[in-house]
């Protein structure tokens, strides 16, 4: 036993160490994931009638519900991760380097979840995957979502994560451990010579420069999925694409704040993930919040000042009707978040607890807003005189989505057990872990 503990403790940041709490976390996540897979199985065998979705129009339902809400949400969250990592690289924000890898991982995992959420929503998932590769059409906004977001964006983020981790992998590969094969594979012969470091700097710089326009296009395409549909009041509009990008930033940075706090706690590195990092993230979040709140105000004023006939039913339902609690709740969550951030900026004291609370609030608001984009335009937005519809998600939908979140938590947790979340500083960190 002693030899085993010795072996494991040579790796920093608790990599390779599995204690009771960790095992409990894995078991819990696997249980929820199992329930998610079971729920999906029901849907795959019995048909999507087990969800709460129904046809728009005569059936009085919403045909896109919680699944598409989560697709938009997950892809939105992925925006901030790689953007933060790219900004750190392009503008050499060295003091933020400790969270770069966490941010990159967040992008990769949330894109995987977003892709899975799309597949789960298809009536024919297996055929869907094959037929998209065979027949996907560029004039459908989905083409961009499929080819640029899931393929291009995911792949480039993976490449960025991989290349950025080679130095640490080479370091870790020197220590004998059960994960040595994995670290050696990742390092792929990295020798940490000045020349290699130069090369990596250059490659990561240009990669970051290339990824940023790709993700702006990808998120705008997602906005176009909704914004180009002339037949759906509440969807058709020029503001959808920019608003999608802004809310993506809000939810993504909220997530980074939460993850950074967790990583800080679990790896016990408050000196590296310190107030400076949280301050920067808090200010960035505040900036994106203010942009998004501005969009919301403009949208609200335009709607209320002159409501077109086609949008009257929808607007009433959103502002004073059955969706009002989600609408005003989300607005309140975003405004409270902004106020808390402004206050922290003014007193120049950034508290991790408050920031995590803001991160959670901002994400809840993001889910609420995404839901409000997807559902009301279907139940309350028919142009012909159909009766108003209704939609309530079923247990199957909640189960699948819970499974997706569990999968995400599991992927992140497993990754940080196999690889350090923070870039390794120097030899002394390994010594500390040994003691």
């Amino acid at each position: 036993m002693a030899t085993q503990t010795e072996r494991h403790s040579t790796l920093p940041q608790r990599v390779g160490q599995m204690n009771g709490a960790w095992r409990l976390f894995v078991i819990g996540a696997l249980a929820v994931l199992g329930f998610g897979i079971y729920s999906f199985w029901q849907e795959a065998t019995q048909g999507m009638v087990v969800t709460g979705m129904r046809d728009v129009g005569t059936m009085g339902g919403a045909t896109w519900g919680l699944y598409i809400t989560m697709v938009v949400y997950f892809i939105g969250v992925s925006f901030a991760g790689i953007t933060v990592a790219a900004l750190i690289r392009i503008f050499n924000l060295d003091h933020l380097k400790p969270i770069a890898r966490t941010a990159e991982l967040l992008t990769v995992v949330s894109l995987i979840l977003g892709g899975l959420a799309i597949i789960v929503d298809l009536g024919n998932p297996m055929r869907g995957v094959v037929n998209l590769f065979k027949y996907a059409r560029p004039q459908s906004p989905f083409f961009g979502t499929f080819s640029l977001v899931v393929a291009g964006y995911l792949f480039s983020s993976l490449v960025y994560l991989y290349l950025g981790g080679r130095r640490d992998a080479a370091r870790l590969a020197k220590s004998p451990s059960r994960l040595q094969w994995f670290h050696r594979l990742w390092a792929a012969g990295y020798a940490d010579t000045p020349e290699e470091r130069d090369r990596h700097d250059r490659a990561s710089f240009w990669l970051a420069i290339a990824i940023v326009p790709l993700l702006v296009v990808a998120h705008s395409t997602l906005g176009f999925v909704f914004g180009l549909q002339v037949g759906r009041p509440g969807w058709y509009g020029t503001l959808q694409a920019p608003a999608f990008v802004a809310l993506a930033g809000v939810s993504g940075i909220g997530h980074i704040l939460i993850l950074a706090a967790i990583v800080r706690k679990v790896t016990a590195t408050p000196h590296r993930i310190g107030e400076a990092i949280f301050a920067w993230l808090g200010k960035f979040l505040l900036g994106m919040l203010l942009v998004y709140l501005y969009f919301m105000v403009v949208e609200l004023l335009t709607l209320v000042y002159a409501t077109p006939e086609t949008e009257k039913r929808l607007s009433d339902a959103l502002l004073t009707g059955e969706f009002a609690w989600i609408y005003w709740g989300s607005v309140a969550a975003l405004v409270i978040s902004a106020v808390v951030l402004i206050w922290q900026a003014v007193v120049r004291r950034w508290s991790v607890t408050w920031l995590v609370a803001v991160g959670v609030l901002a994400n809840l608001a993001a889910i609420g807003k995404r839901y409000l984009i997807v559902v009301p335009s279907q139940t309350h937005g028919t142009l012909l005189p159909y009766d108003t519809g209704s939609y309530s998600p079923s247990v199957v939908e909640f189960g699948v989505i819970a499974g997706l979140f569990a999968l995400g938590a599991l992927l992140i947790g497993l990754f940080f057990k196999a690889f350090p979340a923070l870039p390794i500083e120097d030899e002394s960190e390994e010594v500390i872990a040994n003691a």
Partner: protein
Amino acid sequence: MKYGMVVDLDRCQGCRACMEACKVENNTAQGHFWMYVFRYEEGSFPETQINFLPRPCQHCDNAPCVKVCPVGARFSREDGVVLTDADRCIGCRYCELACPYGVNYFNWRKPEKGQYEIVDWSDPDLEPVTGGAIPPYRNPDLDGLHGEEQRRTGGGSQAKGVMEKCTFCVQRIEKGLQPACVTTCPTDALVFGDKTDASTPVGRYLAEKRTWRLLEEAGTEPSVFYVGSRPPTHRSKEIERPKASV
């Protein structure tokens, strides 16, 4: 040659025989109304007016559903008919959302569960009568490949997880027949044919009468033209809605 339909609202009496005929011809599932007839009311009592509005798929020339289909399962033919290839459809339901008219239906259930449960059609005692077909009035023409393009476009709820909608009875028009709704209408309120030829009944309507189309402002260029009455507005309130959910 481009197919079009004229709906004469001065003749339509809202009997909904067309809805029933469509159902029998195309074996649509419970809650699916490829042809639908709105019965709606305007004004408030005692100055109310009741109107009927048949709403098949409009087979738009600039169909938004065709534009958004990610895999080309929903496509437009040269003769103007907009069809869905059940072999290629992945069930994303984007066409349903792009359509301003609400004519699309998704197969939420397995075929044997989707039909009307007047009796249990899979009961072995019924087999000598139905020959095992569910529903017993199954139309075998729906299963094949249609048109020059040879695609499985008949629809009729044979598979779960795919979209379908009014096909202008593709399996009938290729035999030279008229769509089921047109043939059944007791007052000849529905007229179908080549809208580019002024000598056909459709062409004559278009040449001689003032026609309008639903949701012109959406720019979809529908092929279904209405004569008489006037378009519904947001004051129109639907009445006598069929129980249509599953």
